[in-house]
């Protein structure tokens, strides 16, 4: 079933401009974009972004806070409506789906892990993990079976009947991951899943994610602002700045030839570490 180098996600010329009045903006006209840039009530969060992700690949998007990473992934799920652009994921043109189709796309094809977990406080760990299954109407036994399995995979066996409030941050994010995996979607979106965690726990969760990826082979779009994490997890990475992709490529390419100062500052420490390692 796994065909490498097959394009699984194709995003082309994506734009998101936040406006207060839902005004339609023609991104094709440079004058109009100039006008929007001057207007303080409008924010260009994503600006003409295109990328492709192959099947089972982990594509990392890196950038400082406010560079538009979250907005971009939310647009892929249409939690935020993109202003313009096209996104074909698992053979579906997401941008052209109607309401009903969008709902079944979200149920079957894709799942997201959130920076602030987004768990449901009134539901137990297992109910959280089984949420997607319940929403798409699977039977109670099925839900229980799959959620139990997934919770075990992420190391939460025995915690099924606790409430999220009773867990540590790292464990909560494991619930978030379990909730995404229990749907068994071909595509995963992860928006800074480890950035709210202590360094040690973060490290542990990264190991876990690497391990899971080896086993499950999901096509993944992974957001982070941490270069270390990007290098550990990513097959390819893109650096985002003020809504644009300023560089993309394999980690090695980006480290060796940073496209501009912004990227260079990002990778500077890492380059020095690598040099030191070579000297030794």
């Amino acid at each position: 079933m796994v065909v490498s180098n097959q394009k699984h996600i194709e995003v082309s010329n994506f734009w998101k401009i936040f406006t207060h009045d839902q005004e339609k903006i023609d991104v094709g006209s440079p004058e109009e974009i100039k006008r929007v840039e001057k207007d303080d009530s409008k924010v260009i969060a994503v600006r003409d972004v295109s990328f492709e992700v192959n099947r089972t690949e982990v594509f990392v998007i890196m950038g400082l806070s406010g560079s538009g990473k979250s907005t971009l992934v939310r647009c892929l799920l249409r939690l935020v409506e993109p202003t313009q652009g096209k996104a074909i994921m698992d053979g579906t043109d997401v941008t052209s789906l109607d309401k009903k189709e969008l709902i079944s796309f979200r149920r079957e094809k894709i799942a997201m892990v959130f920076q602030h977990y987004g768990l449901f406080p009134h539901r137990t760990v297992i109910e959280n993990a089984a949420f997607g299954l319940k929403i798409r109407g699977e039977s109670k036994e099925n839900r229980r079976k799959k959620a139990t399995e997934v919770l075990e995979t992420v190391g939460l066996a025995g915690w099924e009947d606790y409430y999220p409030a009773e867990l540590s941050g790292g464990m909560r994010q494991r619930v978030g991951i379990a909730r995404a995996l229990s749907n068994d979607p071909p595509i995963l979106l992860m928006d800074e899943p480890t950035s709210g965690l202590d360094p040690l726990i973060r490290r542990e969760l990264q190991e876990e994610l690497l391990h899971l990826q080896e086993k499950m082979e999901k096509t993944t779009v992974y957001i982070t602002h941490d270069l270390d994490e990007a290098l550990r997890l990513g097959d390819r990475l893109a650096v985002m700045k003020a809504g644009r992709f300023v560089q993309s490529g394999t980690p090695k390419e980006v480290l060796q030839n940073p496209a501009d100062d912004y990227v260079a500052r990002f990778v500077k420490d890492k380059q020095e570490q690598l040099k030191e390692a070579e000297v030794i």
Partner: protein
Amino acid sequence: MPPESLELHIDYLISQFVDWLTVNYAGVFEQISDIIITLLLSVRHVFLIIPWWLLIAIIGIVGWLLTRRVTTTVTLVTLSFVIVFFGMWRPAIDTLSLVLTSVIIAIGLGIPVGVLMAEFDVINTVVTPILDMMQTLPGFVYLIPAIMLFGLGKVPATIATLIYSTPPVVRFTNIGLRQVSSEIMESATAFGTTRFQLLKEIRLPLAATSILGGINQTIMMALAMTVIASMIGAGGLGKHVLVAINRLKVGAGFEAGFSIVCLAIVIDRLSSGIAEHWRPPES
């Protein structure tokens, strides 16, 4: 004094309109009456089947289960006994039945309206000023439309109580649903919830505490209003106060009035206890 020649009366127009309404829509009013009477009698029937001592025991046990505090439990039982000692048990049950009847209807109408307000901003914009006005007006005012359409008795009393006490449950349902964090709603949406699933699985359970708080306020306002509505035939404890006032019987008035206070405290402790203890059902 303004000259009498400036007076411009519309009372006969109003009377004509009400006559027209009651003649042409007699069926509708009759049906509303029937529903209310049936509900009222059933509620009262339940309270009258239960022996008074058993009801007090239930109040004590529920109070204990909710608060786990001896003082609260003892207070609730003592206050109930005060009503018995003053010979006000039967009127207290009448009052309680009327309160519960109007509260049941208020919840049945109020929660759906609150949900609609939370779901549709247009409805929110239209209904909010109406609720504001309903809560600004003194309860007294609601007696007039109630008697105009339903005459005197328990039915108009219930309707006046209903109108006066519905706003809190509507308001708190709306607020509770709107307060659910956008992060939680977003993650639910990401898993493909329909609007209805989002409401049922996420928003309503998370708003439950707020809604129960609103119900508690609705109950307390209904109790206050049934006392006022004794002027149009609500009966119960209010009637005993009213009679005592008319006959200048201060002592009797005190007994009836103090029984109202006892009833109010008991109902408030129990219903707010339920609101505080609420844990959303696990599915």
